[in-house]
């Protein structure tokens, strides 16, 4: 799973969002380290929809009434949640392993 995919799934784990919302949430959490442009974001979204990991959903109540053009909102599918959980567990295992052998650099300082 690429960083970009992981970040998008993570963002959607907190609830449905539209494209720009995903970008904002990702940039907030990574403090700008991961930046998403309109092109690459929708390319990833398109792929994730085809893979069945996310899906289009109706806009949440508060967003729908806030005016502006109707926007597509996306949410995790059960498959998406599973894939995310699996990926996070895998990463967790890796981190645990690394920490056990002092590979995170904590010991060197």
């Amino acid at each position, binding site marked *: 799973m690429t960083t970009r995919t992981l970040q998008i799934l993570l963002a959607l784990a907190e609830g449905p969002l539209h*494209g720009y919302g995903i970008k904002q949430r990702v940039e907030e959490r990574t403090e700008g380290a991961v930046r998403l442009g309109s092109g690459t974001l929708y*390319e990833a979204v398109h792929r994730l929809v085809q893979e069945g990991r996310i899906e289009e959903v109706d806009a949440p109540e508060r967003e729908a009434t806030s005016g502006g053009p109707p926007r597509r909102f996306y949410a995790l599918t059960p498959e998406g949640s599973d894939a995310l959980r699996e990926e996070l567990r895998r990463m967790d295992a890796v981190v645990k392993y690394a920490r056990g052998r002092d590979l995170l650099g904590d010991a060197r300082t």
Partner: protein
Amino acid sequence: MTPPSRLFNWLVRLYPRTYRARYEAEMEAFHQQERAAGEGGVGYALRLVVDHVEAAAAVRREGGDGMMRSLLEDLTGGWRALRRAPAFTGFAVLTLSLGIGATTAVFSVLDRVVLRPLPYPDSNRMALVGSRLRHDPDTRGPLSPAILVALQATTGPAEAVVGAAGGRGVLRDMGDPERMEFTRVSPGFFEFFGARAAVGRLLGEADHAVGAERAAVLGHGFWRERFGGDAGAVGRTLRLDDETYTVVGVLGSDFVPPPEVVEAGDIYVSLRLAEGEPVLGSFSIAGVARLRPGAALDDLETHIGRQIEGLYAQAAYAASLLGGVARPFHREVVGDVGGTLGRVLGAVLLLLLIACANVASLLLTRGAERSHELAVRTALGAGRGRLARQLLSQSLLLALMGGAVGSAIAFGAVEAFRRYAPDGLPRLAEVAVDARGLGFSLLLGLVTVLLFGVVPALRSARRSSSASAALTSRGATTGRREGRLRGALVTMETALAVMLAVGSALLAHDLVRMATLDPGFRPDGVVALRLGLAPRYGEEEWVGIWDRLLEGAEALPGVTAAAVATQVPYTGDRTASLYRPEGVDMEEGEFVITISVAGDYLAALGARMAEGRPLVALDARGAPAVMVNEAFVTRYWPGESALGRYVRSDGERPGDAPSHPVVGVIADMVTDPGDDVAPRVYVPLASEPGPDMEVIVRTDGNAVALAPALRSLVQRIDPTLPVTSVRTVRALGRQVLARPRFYTTLFGGFAAVALLLAVVGVYGTTAYAARARTREIGIRMALGAVRARVVRGELARTGLVVVLGVLIGLAAAWVASRALVDVLHHVTPRDRLSYGAVAALVLASGLLAAWWPAERAGRVDPVDTLKGEG
């Protein structure tokens, strides 16, 4: 639409149609939110391009078929490879885009100004028409109302003839009264140029009829600026001087006021040719004709001549009118600008070549560095064709990126050009980068890269076929041939940079000479006020008014000298006269500029007498005495004293004794450093007064501060007199040098970039060559070579290449600088100082660029090198 949005709209076309249908609106909203969040500028534009190109390639790769897929894979592979080497990619793109951007900008200007037909229907059949005046037969003189009326009635070989004349007036009813220039046009003028109204209507037949209500048409820009683009402007009234006009319409934004015909495109009114008898005098109309298909220009000229003959046979003007003139519109407008822009294009192409050589040398370096990787891949079974294709696709991507960034540079450069171009450059309003210009830059990018990218690609592919050799040698002996190729590229770059630098050094030296030339007078501290007495005062009143102004000006505090004269230095008015030197047969059409002066003209301008005495008021009595300038003496009485000789005037016949004694010779005042000083005769104002004169004052204080005092002086004498302009002579002088200064800056900029690229090229070559032989150097040092000697050896390799480049460049410049002969006035194209300075500069910077990496190579630690052997 804002530029980023335009870019965005262009970028979304990269996606497949179905994908667009689904996501375009979303991406658009996303983009708008980014804009709203304050994103913008060049950085954002670049991110947009990278983002969408990458995404579109990914989308298409997913959905594409065989061919497309493999092409995209190549491109994606190339893209990844480029991303892995950001320094290489960045530098190659920067170099390419500088070359492409500058070339595209200059091409766009040249294309719009010179190559394209003028933006009017059948403009290739249009001709500027006018009269040929005896005192200046080479010039296309204006038409009189009578001639235009006759030509419109009998068009002869022309389909149609129209004309326009400039007018000046005080515009009221729109805020503060202000002096405006406007244009008076003949019937059929707007139809002739294919103009359309954006709002309301243009002037029609009825508006030109006798007794018609006064109607005005506004230029689009003026309407925007003054009425905020409000359609309600139509129907409003304007008061120009004492006339009231009703605005009937606004011209379309695409209408370009025809150059040479319309000077002020803000307000158009009727010439009112139909009223009364057509005026024979008042030559003030610029005429344009459209020839019938197949008709010849000469026929039109003859036709105009015949009309003039018919009209003026009985009139007093007959003697001074020689006939008609008809000249191709486009050529008259573009004039010698084609030559100038051609030179600029030549300079910029040199720059592009340098950029190409740089990129080629970069690609060669990279090819050599990757030869190991390629050898491994070949050994693992990658097809040679596939490898070459990937290398080529990298070049293609570089070309595209260089073209894209280059276009952005071109847009900026053309915008800057429009803002800073000197006055008098024709068709400036039409200049813009368009699809043609962008196509040109794309083409340039492709040609460059194919030319300079294919060779390295093929070489790499060929080399990788001897995979085993490459694997074992580890690139240590990266070909001698390649070294030679790189050397040749650096030589070429250096030579081209020298050529450009010599060109700009010549221009700069010429400019310095012009700027520091002794003009023969002291322009600092002089203010000139231009004033017109007509039509308010009759001819007999002129002298009196000028005298009062002169007295008033002399009395102003801070004024040390004052004068009134027909012209002030740097203003190029040519006053026709038939004063001619006694005892000399002047050629047909040769004439002497006459300047009427009153007051202390010499002191006011700080001019000097070369011989004799200045004119005094008494000189106007009887047969007026005159002054001439040095150029006059040199031309007509070479080697003789002018004092005591005579000048003939208009009315005298060859048999009469000439009546104007020359009492003084004024030292030449050089007002156009690019031209010879013209012969001049100075006559007392009282004997030849004019309605339009300059009041010239010298102050020992601040010249600019004197302007209001001068204006209020005119106000005191007659508050209704329109002051055209007040300016310091120093400022007028600066305008004269504006054009050479502009071109010198332009060339200098190209030369600076060229030099920078060449230096970087030299540096890169030495650095690369030294690095490739680190092992060899290490071993030599381990064997006892002295460091200084190693450095010298490395330096000598590239140093030789630089010296060779400089020599070739100087020789080429020696030949090519002849192209500049028309624009250089005070230095020859063989100016040694320029050549010497450039040679020294390029040698010094080139050797420095070679020395640095050589010196570093000398610091190689032999132990490290030998360790690396294990």
